[in-house]
């Protein structure tokens, strides 16, 4: 959607507290004196960035949880107490902490914990697919718009605005409606929906870096544009993109869960947390716990991605 053409009425901050800080602060002056060969911003990917991130305890906890989810996705088959599809009609609707079923069973007597574990892999793979696609669709136009500017920039931003102005789920329903239900179709839709995030962030990073001295220097000695983009701009644009990756992963998880809940994503007998939620809802009177666990699984995963993404963003830090 379009933002108003005027700038907002915010003045430059910094009260002059004499004696403790400089009386007048100016806009951050980048190390203009730095030799062009050593891209000054490369430090962002180097030690200080990582050190700051590691010191952020909450972000580290979030990262640990994400890694935990990945590990579960890999070894899930071996550690699940039951096969996720094993039905046991006699033991249907068991509550949590019943004998043999830590989180209870569903309407067909299938063990909830095992199904949650199996769904973990599906959720993560789906999120990765959506992410990968959206980066594939989004980053190149962002690079183009930022570097080339003018007409290309305008065109790309118009389309991005249009796509972002649509409610994400509506787009997804439209695409799935045309293509037909199915996890891969749903992920295609999500890839398209989240691409604008990457277009914007890449474009912003390129715009900022384009005026940097080291790029000027490369340009002045005649380095071809694509080389400049690949070797200089991309590594320095990486941190904000990483932040976006973490955040979009969270969005993708939620979106996939919504679609699966409605029956348009994952198809039975496969299960994702979203479809478990959708199915469980039908039996909310008999066994409310069927709804609680998948929902918490989604929420915790999204929380972890959000918190880690925030931590990434904080440790990159703009030099203000």
């Amino acid at each position, binding site marked *: *959607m*379009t*933002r*108003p*053409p*005027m700038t*907002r*009425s*915010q*003045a430059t*901050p*910094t*009260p002059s507290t004499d004696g403790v800080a400089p009386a007048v602060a100016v806009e951050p002056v980048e190390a203009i004196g730095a030799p062009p060969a050593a891209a000054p911003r490369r430090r962002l990917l180097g030690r200080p960035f990582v050190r700051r991130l590691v010191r952020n305890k909450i972000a580290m906890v979030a990262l640990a949880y994400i890694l935990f989810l990945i590990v579960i996705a890999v070894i899930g088959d071996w550690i699940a107490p039951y096969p996720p599809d094993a039905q046991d009609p006699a033991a249907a609707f068991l509550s949590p902490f019943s004998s043999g079923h830590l989180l209870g069973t569903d309407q067909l007597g299938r063990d909830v914990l095992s199904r949650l574990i199996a769904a973990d892999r599906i959720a993560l793979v789906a999120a990765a697919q959506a992410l990968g696609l959206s980066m594939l669709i989004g980053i190149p136009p962002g690079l183009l718009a930022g570097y080339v500017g003018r007409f290309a920039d305008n065109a790309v931003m*118009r*389309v991005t*605005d*249009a*796509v*972002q*102005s*649509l*409610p*994400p*789920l*509506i*787009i997804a*329903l*439209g*695409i*799935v*409606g*045309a*293509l*037909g*239900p199915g996890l891969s179709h749903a992920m295609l839709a999500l890839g398209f929906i989240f691409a604008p995030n990457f277009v914007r962030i890449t474009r912003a990073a390129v715009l900022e870096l384009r005026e940097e001295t080291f790029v000027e220097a490369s340009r002045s000695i005649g380095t071809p544009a694509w080389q400049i983009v690949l070797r200089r701009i991309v590594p320095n644009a990486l941190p904000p993109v990483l932040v976006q990756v973490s955040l979009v992963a*969270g969005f993708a998880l*939620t979106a996939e*869960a*919504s679609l699966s*809940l*409605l*029956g*348009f994503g994952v198809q039975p007998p496969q299960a994702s947390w979203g479809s478990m*939620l959708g199915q469980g*809802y039908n039996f*909310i*009177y008999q066994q*409310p716990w069927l*709804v*609680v666990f998948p*929902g918490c699984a*989604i*929420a*915790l995963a*999204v*929380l972890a991605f*959000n*918190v880690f993404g*925030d931590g990434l963003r904080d440790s990159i830090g703009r030099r203000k």
Partner: protein
Amino acid sequence: MGRYVARRLLLVIPVMLIVSLLSFSLILLVPGDPAVTIAGQSATREQIAAIRDQLGLDRPVVVQYISWLGHALTGDFGNSLSTGQPVVGSILDRLPVMLSLAAGALVIAVILGFPAGVAAAVRRDGVVDRLLGVGAATGLALPSYFVGMLLIILVALNLGWLPPTGYTPIATDPVDWLAHIVLPCIALGLVPAAVLARQLRGAMVTALDQDYVRTADAKGLLRQKVVYKHALKNAAIAPLTALGTQFALVVGGSVVVEQVFGIPGLGALAINAVQNRDIPLIQGIVVFTALMVQAINLLVDISYGWLNPRVRVAVAR
């Protein structure tokens, strides 16, 4: 101010044009022969031909688009393939419900988010601020439909305070309408509330650091006045305009929340359409929601222009 509005209106056109293109191209996404796929597995040759005819699928794509666009501009999106009713009519029928949900959610967002954001900023790094940080993070992570289900379990099933599902139009019984709409609006409104609170906190912290706040203090104004009059007036602009963004997300989220609460709104219509591969209906819904979002964003941008003295005054002079 008038010129600002006019200019802003013009911006809607290219966006809607692109949206119409995207919308139309949905038919192109249908795998295989669209008429066959849409008609379904047990369709007869006559049914397939009827669909092909109705959607004009044997014409060149460009012609199809122009014809579709032409009809769309007059408000004709064709008839639903499942009900045979005009698409626009079906959509308009469901509109009031969706609007009450979306508006209610945003109201909840403001009621919860604004005070929280201000309180957190005023005592920066204090207890309230930390709590808000945690609360906002949680609010953002909880899917709205999950919150809805939890609310149903807790409030409706366990406590019995409110009905779990269903909907009553406001004209029939306002009290009942309210009783049915409160829970879904809370479920939908939590995420926008979290976003709003965070944004407002950030904006307030920046505003409170500004020189003009120091001047207001120096003039001897009471702290309350400084915070709520001087700082807030400047800080509130950005979060308020963010409500426009949130509207789009709320519309999307309402689709699932309607299912959870059994509310017959636009979302339910959309889901039906997808299940039946009802392309004209889907196209209509896509264009329609886009139009609504554009309208809300237009309103938001206009009110921003009015609130920001630089715009209001500069354009007028």
